[in-house]
């Protein structure tokens, strides 16, 4: 409880001003400020900054995950091991590949459909429901549903391939099939998030620009191409950043649906850290992998922020 002793009920401007500059109030503000921020700061330092520092420390020791205690000092050798391990790099590549597969679809498709949906007067709730409902479904429920849909013979997706005269790929047995399975699932699952971001941005656009365009005789297609899309560029930038960062952190779908298979050919970095740290119990090594991955993610987000600041000025979308 923080109470600062201030003016005792005299309601004039002059009193307030003189009171707020007097030393006891300043001290009271200081104390109240720290008391109100303290819970946040404590939890923030303990559980957000803490793991980063602990990760750095552990990565310098040959810690095992089975027993407590740091183990012996090994200097940078964990990093040398990580950086020279082809399994680490292939898992890195899988996370990047997943990002390359999903990002274009999840940046452009929601844009297209948000623009088309914005031309409807009614039924906005219906689109929100259809597209955004999957986003609130837990990853494992999504995987249960899609695992069933991908089942050979019985699955809906497998059958759908047959209806259009194609043979369904082996979604669980081949690498390309597995990537297709994960990509489809991810697009269905997270499409709505970006759709909502675009829809909100479209509603913010000024009506007058379109009225002017109407008067000038611009058709709907021209309006979309020459007005809507250019005006949405800042939002596209935001969606791109969020999408790349979240795609690089992929774990749930690939782990639950495929367990990183077949034969580790889709295993993302987080699962690699998970496997080395919690299955092989090489804590120090996994911490070094964590830190390398961490630095990559931070560099990507800092890079994005810098590029964005340079191109769009101080205003954010």
């Amino acid at each position, binding site marked *: *409880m*923080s*109470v600062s002793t201030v*003016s*005792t009920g*005299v*309601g004039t401007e002059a009193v307030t001003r003189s009171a*707020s500059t007097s030393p006891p109030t300043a001290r009271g*503000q200081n104390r109240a*400020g720290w008391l*109100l*921020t303290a819970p*946040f*700061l404590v*939890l923030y330092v303990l*559980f*957000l*900054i803490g793991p*980063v520092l*602990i*990760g750095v420390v552990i990565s310098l020791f040959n*810690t095992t995950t089975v027993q*407590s205690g740091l183990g012996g000092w090994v200097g940078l050798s964990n990093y040398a091991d990580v950086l020279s391990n082809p399994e680490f790099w292939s898992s890195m590549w899988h996370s990047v590949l997943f990002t390359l597969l999903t990002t274009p679809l999840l940046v452009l498709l929601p844009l297209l459909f948000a623009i088309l949906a914005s031309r*409807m007067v009614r*039924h*906005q*709730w*219906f689109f*929100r429901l259809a597209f955004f*409902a999957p986003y609130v*479904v*837990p990853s*494992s*429920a999504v*995987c*249960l*549903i899609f695992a*069933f849909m991908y089942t050979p013979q019985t699955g*809906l997706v497998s059958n759908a391939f047959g209806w259009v005269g194609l043979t369904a790929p082996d979604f669980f047995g081949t690498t390309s099939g597995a990537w297709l399975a994960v990509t489809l699932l991810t697009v*269905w699952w997270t499409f709505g998030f970006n759709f909502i971001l675009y829809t*909100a941005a479209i*509603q913010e656009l000024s009506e007058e620009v379109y009225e002017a365009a109407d008067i000038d005789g611009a*058709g*709907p297609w021209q309006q979309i191409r020459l007005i809507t899309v250019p005006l949405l560029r800042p939002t596209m930038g935001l969606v791109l950043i*969020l999408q790349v*960062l979240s795609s690089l*952190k992929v*774990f*749930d779908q690939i782990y639950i*649906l495929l367990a990183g298979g077949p034969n580790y050919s889709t295993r993302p970095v*987080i699962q690699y*850290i*998970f496997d080395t740290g919690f299955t092989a119990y090489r804590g120090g090594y996994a911490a070094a992998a*964590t830190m390398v*991955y*961490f630095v990559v993610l*931070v560099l990507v*987000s*800092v890079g994005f*922020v810098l590029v964005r600041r340079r191109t769009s000025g101080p205003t954010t979308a």
Partner: protein
Amino acid sequence: MATAVAPAVTKRTTHVRARQQSSGKLFNRLAGTCVVLFALIWLVPFAWTVITSLRTNDEIAAQPTKFWGSDWNLDAYASAWQSSPLGWWYVNSFIISTLSVIFAVVVCSMAAFALVHLDYRLRYVVLSLILAGLMIPTEALVLPQFMEFRALRLLGTYWAIILPGVALPVAVFVFHSFIKAIPMALVEAARVDGAGWWRIYRQIIMPLCRPAISAVAILTFITSWNAFLWPLLVLTQTKSQTIPVGLASLVGGAAIQYAQTMASAVLGILPLLAVFLLLQRQIAQGVANTGIK
């Protein structure tokens, strides 16, 4: 990673753009058909899941894609409920998510209030520290986090899941921009009347922050309810697991126990879907305004 975006969380954009100009009418109709079709496709997995859960395994195996079953029944739900501790998972998920929401809202709004209204020492250091926190990819740090919680002897407890999700930099920025928009005069008047800072926070700021509170609360609830990797590592007892972690253990069974597995999926989806249906507009608005991901 997330970005705090629009300052006014409440802002209502009521107009929906639809220019019914003669040349555009045909185009709009085409566009409409396109999106509606696409949206219907999006609903297929849901429909498929529900329908499968109502059919019998024999019938599914015989005619997998026939949508209309002859004898729909709820047997699969009964057996899904009996074969896995779904009830426990609900309880765990519910307790964890609710506590996470309460703590996150209180802790983050207090910090944001102090950052806006209180001129305390090192305030700008705190602000930039929190800003930097937006860039920390917490999902990548599960291993050191695990070591930390083992050292604290909190593994296997609710606290291990709740504590890391309370200090959310994004939530602070949502509250920060919202509180900033509240007229300064209100706070000053209360100060003049002798109200302490705690009282100002509780009785003036928080009631006015309702939209920000609901945005943060809803999104924290969804994120915490759906969290997978961290609860998977921390909660190892079957009965202490959350819905997402528990459901993940059923994925292998999808190949034989079709109806039962789909019934479990439906049961796993239901609570949040209900929340979503009730609060559709607020959730969409919250996402649009905060970009939490």
